[in-house]
């Protein structure tokens, strides 16, 4: 789910954006605050809304200015990294570094047995909502909006020439993808726990999924995201859980070096 959001974001703005990491964490805390009052659905709405607001505000305040100044992908990437770090710091001040648990989801007790494997309700909900969101995004990309997003993604100047408001499209895509990532943040929070640094690892895994799946290919990102989860667990079982991260990052390096366009992606831009 994080991978879908990142893929959508990358396809329009063309740089490795660390924003989803900030959004995941912020939304998880939003859900943490609102779920006890409004219930799981209300919490999800708040998580999505806070993600959208964060994405919207960051685009207006920072990334739009960077685009106006023709900032390179690297500068934008560093700026988004700065946002991630400061959001993480701000949340650590507000909520301390302690891990929190998202209440109101029944926890592990409400698990069901499918073919001998125990699956919690949370994981089922995550899977279901990920599928629904994937379908929504794919449908969106086929629609008129999607066409304009893809046009902007191919060439911002070209899109402007034919009368597309490129800035508005980017703003819309950023807000939407941040809302999706926000819901993902809540799901992660429900499945495991909440802490200020949770977004960092998650956004890195998402980026790895995007690189491996292929830049700009949403289906690729999803397939890669799932396979990374699989590889992680297989390597944890085979080599021990502490080698999980190195294996995944080694995979990233291998793909960056040998096949930077990923499995389904287009060739990376040359600049």
């Amino acid at each position, binding site marked *: 789910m994080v991978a879908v959001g990142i893929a959508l974001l990358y396809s329009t703005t063309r*740089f*490795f954006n660390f924003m989803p990491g900030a959004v995941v964490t912020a939304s998880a805390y939003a859900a943490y605050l609102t779920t006890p009052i409004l219930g799981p659905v209300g919490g999800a709405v708040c998580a999505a809304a806070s993600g959208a607001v964060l994405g919207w505000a960051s685009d207006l305040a*920072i990334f739009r*200015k*960077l685009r106006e100044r023709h*900032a*390179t*992908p*690297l*500068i*934008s*990437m*560093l*700026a988004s*990294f*700065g*946002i*991630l*770090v*400061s*959001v*993480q*710091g*701000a949340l*650590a*001040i507000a909520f*301390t*570094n302690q891990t929190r648990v998202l209440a109101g989801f029944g926890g592990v007790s409400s698990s069901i047995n499918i073919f001998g494997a125990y699956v919690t309700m949370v994981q089922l909900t995550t899977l279901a909502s990920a599928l629904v969101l994937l379908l929504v995004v794919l449908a969106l990309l086929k629609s008129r909006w999607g066409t304009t997003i893809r046009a902007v993604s191919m060439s911002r100047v070209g899109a402007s020439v034919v009368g597309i408001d490129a800035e508005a499209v980017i703003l819309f895509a950023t807000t939407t993808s941040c809302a999706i990532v926000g819901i993902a943040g809540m799901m992660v929070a429900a499945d495991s726990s909440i802490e*200020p640094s949770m977004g*960092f690892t998650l956004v*890195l895994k998402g*980026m*790895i999924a995007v*690189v491996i799946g292929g830049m700009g290919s949403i289906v690729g990102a999803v397939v890669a995201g799932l396979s990374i989860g699989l590889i992680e667990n297989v390597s944890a079982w085979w080599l021990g859980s*502490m*080698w999980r*991260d*190195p294996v995944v*990052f*080694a995979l*990233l*390096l291998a793909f*960056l*070096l040998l096949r*930077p366009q990923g499995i389904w992606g287009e060739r*990376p831009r040359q*600049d």
Partner: protein
Amino acid sequence: MRFCCCAPRVSGANGHAKTEMEYLLHLLVYVGLYVILAESLNLVVGFAGIPAMGHAAFSCIGAYTSSLLALHFGVSPFIGMLAGAVAGGVLGLVIAYPALRLKGDYLALATFGAGIIVYNVARNWIGLTRGPMGLPGIPPFKLGSYAIDNTWSYLLLVVVVAALVVWACRNIAKSTFGRNLTSVREDETAAIALGKDTARLKLIAFVAGAFFAGIAGCLYAHYITFIDPSSFTMMESIAILLMVIFGGMGSIAGSVVGAVVLVVLPELLRFVGLPSSVAAPLRQMMYGLLLVLLMLWRPQGILGKYRFR
């Protein structure tokens, strides 16, 4: 080298009675260490134009190499420092040789990934590094029979080494090699057209940067006498990068300024009387905001002429 534990670490090593003077000297040692790190990264980022985001990895391997040599084989830290620097350089070669085929943000992501792998290896290879438990009791530097274990003498050592590194970097930057590097940074295609082996130039710059970072890692290890992987996280790499960017990429004086300001500035928070549970994330937040603001308003830093592209 993490900032946040300046005071507790030293009180462990030097007893609890810490005077203000001692604290000031300690801070200056940190400034010296970060000057070395920022200057070495400046060689890579500022002069060669390579966006390297995993610099802490090299000080990590330098620190572990010299500490393990000293702990298991009783090797003098001076020789250990050389070994650590070489180890840093070799790691740099291993990472840079394949990674330098990439460009721009792809290269940044690759160095980022490499940094995380090194951190995880240090954390999980328990048999060698004792993982998160860290390596305690690292012996101090010895000059003849005189042990450099108080803050005064250590400051002197760090200042001498830092001055040597800055001097070396300045000479590298002014040499033919340095000018060639700058030409690669400004326009790689033009440099190739003039017959420069740009891949080789960048590789040498990266390895040299990793070499100096290895030195800084050793100095840190034998000063604190305890290392664990948490001193070499990605946040650390980002802090060093921020010093280089803030001071100005490709400016020798800039990196010194960046290291001084960004080490001393957060220390001021200590005097406001904030508890450390707030001060550490607040420092992180300050760094993050500073990075955003710099990227927005002055991507070339305060003394730099060059900006990322």
